[in-house]
């Protein structure tokens, strides 16, 4: 365990409830897949092998379930100076990852709307243009179809562009390029061309942004052959996944979430790269496996607190890799708990949860004691009104109810 980093005891992003941490040390008996790569000074960290610290903090007695769990700055968490690593927000973690990769490899460039002089609409590329110049951090006009195509063309020659969609929904305009050229060129050229491109951007339901700006594109992109999709949820995995995506030879779509950019966490100082195909064990447990990703992770963790108080022991896995699924981690969990609940932000129809349900049922049917339950967003365009918007997305009380039903 010496090489593994301190548990980050996930800093609570919730506005007013207790910070959550995983109180148990991880079971050493958990099967580990081998570490994929190890280079000088870089540690590929097993996502489930974090040691969490028992931190003293003020206990709160009330159990207020807050809907719309979202990041707030800081939190009541006491940051001790003796802890290694540095604290930062998720968008800063993304920027750090991007900056490190751009320093390491001159072929990495960023293109997107407002990424350069403006610094990025979510500040992910702030100051990068001043540091690396206009040729490496490129401001594009509002022309998603063509600049995504240009990124792919550049990737065919060996450059490693990072294409930012200001909002994932805008990438619908580039669907043709992403599907046909990005995903399929490696295949149709018989392996001649690699497309090491990263397409990233924030998606998901935000704060009353309206239907067109609250889209979850992972469900549309998931059938495109040849691409990989990952979703980050914490500053730690944001940086690691960003670096892994840039280094990957395959086209990777990195899904961020509009509401998670201000999450704060302490991450290691040392360089680390996460594996793109691995899921993250957030909270080991015995009774039920809850699979989730991106923002819903926080809703699940909040629900998990309630569940723990009620005596349940949920195992929470942040699947992170949306394509391909980490069926290894998921499978082991299913074999242990025999009950699966999927909590996602995608629509009910044709979402990631639907595919995951199918994959689990096919592969682990014999291990299931109950049908897989999938909680997803409603199949409606996201309304503007706040209360309606809340109802389209899965909320912690619904998760609690679902687990209770599942565990009967």
């Amino acid at each position, binding site marked *: 365990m010496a090489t593994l980093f301190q548990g980050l005891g996930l800093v609570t992003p919730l506005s007013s409830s207790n910070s959550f941490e995983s109180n148990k040390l991880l079971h050493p008996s958990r099967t580990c897949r081998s570490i994929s790569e190890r280079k000088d000074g870089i540690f590929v960290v097993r996502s489930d092998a974090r040691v969490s610290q028992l931190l003293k903090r003020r206990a709160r007695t009330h159990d207020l379930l807050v809907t719309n769990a979202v990041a707030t700055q800081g939190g009541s968490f006491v940051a001790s100076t003796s802890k290694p690593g540095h604290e930062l927000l998720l968008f800063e973690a993304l920027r750090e990852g991007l900056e490190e990769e751009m320093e390491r490899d001159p072929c990495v*460039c960023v293109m997107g709307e407002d990424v350069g002089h403006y610094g990025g609409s979510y500040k992910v590329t702030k100051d990068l243009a001043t540091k690396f110049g206009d*040729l490496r951090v*490129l401001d*594009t*006009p509002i*022309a998603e*179809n*063509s*600049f*995504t*195509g*240009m*990124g*792919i*063309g*550049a*990737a*065919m*020659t*060996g*450059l490693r562009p990072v294409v930012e969609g200001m909002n994932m929904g805008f990438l619908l305009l580039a669907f*043709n*390029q992403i599907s*046909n*050229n990005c995903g399929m*060129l*490696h*295949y*149709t*050229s*018989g*392996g*001649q*061309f*690699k497309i090491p491109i990263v397409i990233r951007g924030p998606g998901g339901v935000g704060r009353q942004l309206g239907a067109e700006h609250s889209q979850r594109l992972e469900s549309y992109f998931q059938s495109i*052959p*040849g691409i*990989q999709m990952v979703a980050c949820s914490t500053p730690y995995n944001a940086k690691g996944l960003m670096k892994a995506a840039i280094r990957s*030879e*395959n086209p990777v779509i990195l899904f961020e979430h509009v509401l998670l950019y201000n999450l704060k966490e302490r991450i290691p100082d040392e360089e680390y790269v996460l594996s793109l*195909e691995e899921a993250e064990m957030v909270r080991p447990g015995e009774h039920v496996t809850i699979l989730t990703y991106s923002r819903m992770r926080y809703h699940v963790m909040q629900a998990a607190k309630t569940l723990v108080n009620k005596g349940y022991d949920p195992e929470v896995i942040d699947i992170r890799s949306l394509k*391909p699924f980490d069926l290894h981690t998921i499978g082991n969990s299913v074999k242990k708990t025999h009950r699966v609940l999927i909590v996602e932000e995608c629509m009910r129809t044709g979402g990631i949860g639907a595919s995951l349900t199918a994959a689990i049922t*096919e592969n682990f049917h014999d291990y299931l004691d109950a049908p897989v339950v999938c909680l997803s967003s409603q199949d409606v365009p996201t309304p503007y009104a706040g209360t309606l918007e809340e109802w389209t997305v899965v909320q912690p009380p619904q998760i609690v109810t679902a687990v209770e039903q599942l565990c009967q």
Partner: protein
Amino acid sequence: MALSRLSHRAIGSNLFKPFAAAAAAVSSRPISSDASLTIETSVPFTAHNCDAPSRSVATSPSELLSFFRDMALMRRMEIAADSLYKAKLIRGFCHLYDGQEAVAVGMEAAITRRDCIITAYRDHCTFLGRGGTLLEVFAELMGRRDGCSKGKGGSMHFYRKEGGFYGGHGIVGAQVPLGCGLAFAQKYSKDETVTFALYGDGAANQGQLFEALNIAALWDLPAILVCENNHFVSVLVLTLGLENSKLEYSIIALKLSFGRIKCSLGLVNTDGMGTAEWRAAKSPAYYKRGDYVPGLKMLVDGMDVLAVKQACKFAKEHALKNGPLILEMDTYRYHGHSMSDPGSTYRTRDEISGVRQERDPIERVRKLLLSHDIASEKDLKDIEKEVRKEVDDAIAKAKESPMPDPSDLFTNVYVKGLGVEAFGADRKVVRATLP
């Protein structure tokens, strides 16, 4: 109508004899095996916002011979592909390039293999020009393992990385942003090379083309957008006496027939390539569409391999200094849009054979070679026979090539390193681990 026919004939007789002009302007230096020749293009270039290059093209006997051979090879290959398609050895889509060979060959003569070419689905000859072999072409068309994309791409997906040929794209217009991306990478790596992104007159109406052009002009990319305009509809425009700009390029006065005007209105609906140009484009002066991006149009000369060479050379120099340029090549295809289109519902056989007689690129070079005594009639016939044999041999060899292995279904989906399991359609029997 009689009047227009007369006028047409007058124009026609002038235009269909470009060689007279060319022959007259030829220099009378004695010809040794590689002496340089200067030949004038039949028609001057028309420029938009830039200076037109000179009409005199420098070439040499060996170059002309190579032009002849290459174009004859391409022509024979396309015709052979036609027969193979009819014999059902090639399925799906097959878009043939015969008639347009001058564009591929002339472009190659002006650039190096480090420059990039990207085009749409009419890519067989361009692939050959970039160093592809006949075996790879036919094997790919027949879906065999020895094809350039291992049988997994098909007619519309030829690529050749070492030759700088980036395909081969099925979706109309999608290759233009890719091409600008290639140019971006060239500028990024300071390669001093350029990218030629070819598209057709149909793709010229795609929004992504203008988006890409805007970005290319903003960032000063060495991208040259080449519109291969193989329209037929100029006849309509001429007859209807529309604005001057359309008349200008409608000098390709092909034989008119009134009845045909009425019936050639978008009858064939194959990918929009059967729709009359003036019904699809408000401004068919494609070389001007870039507006702020300079454009060069080669009237008629898309069939003149020397004019193409000159224009491409000029374009390369221009792009390296000043940023993007649009080239419009007036060219013609003998076959229909694809094999499912007979090509005769919107034009007459007379028209096709008329162009074949007067503007065929191979014939032009043949006449040049003969008139300059570079080769004799017999030599040229021998070359053609050789070429024919090469093609036949390649087809025979390609027919022997095996079909791809079933495991090839799963190769090259991802670049190495995933170890993901993939399932066949029934999810039980065929299981493979993606390499």
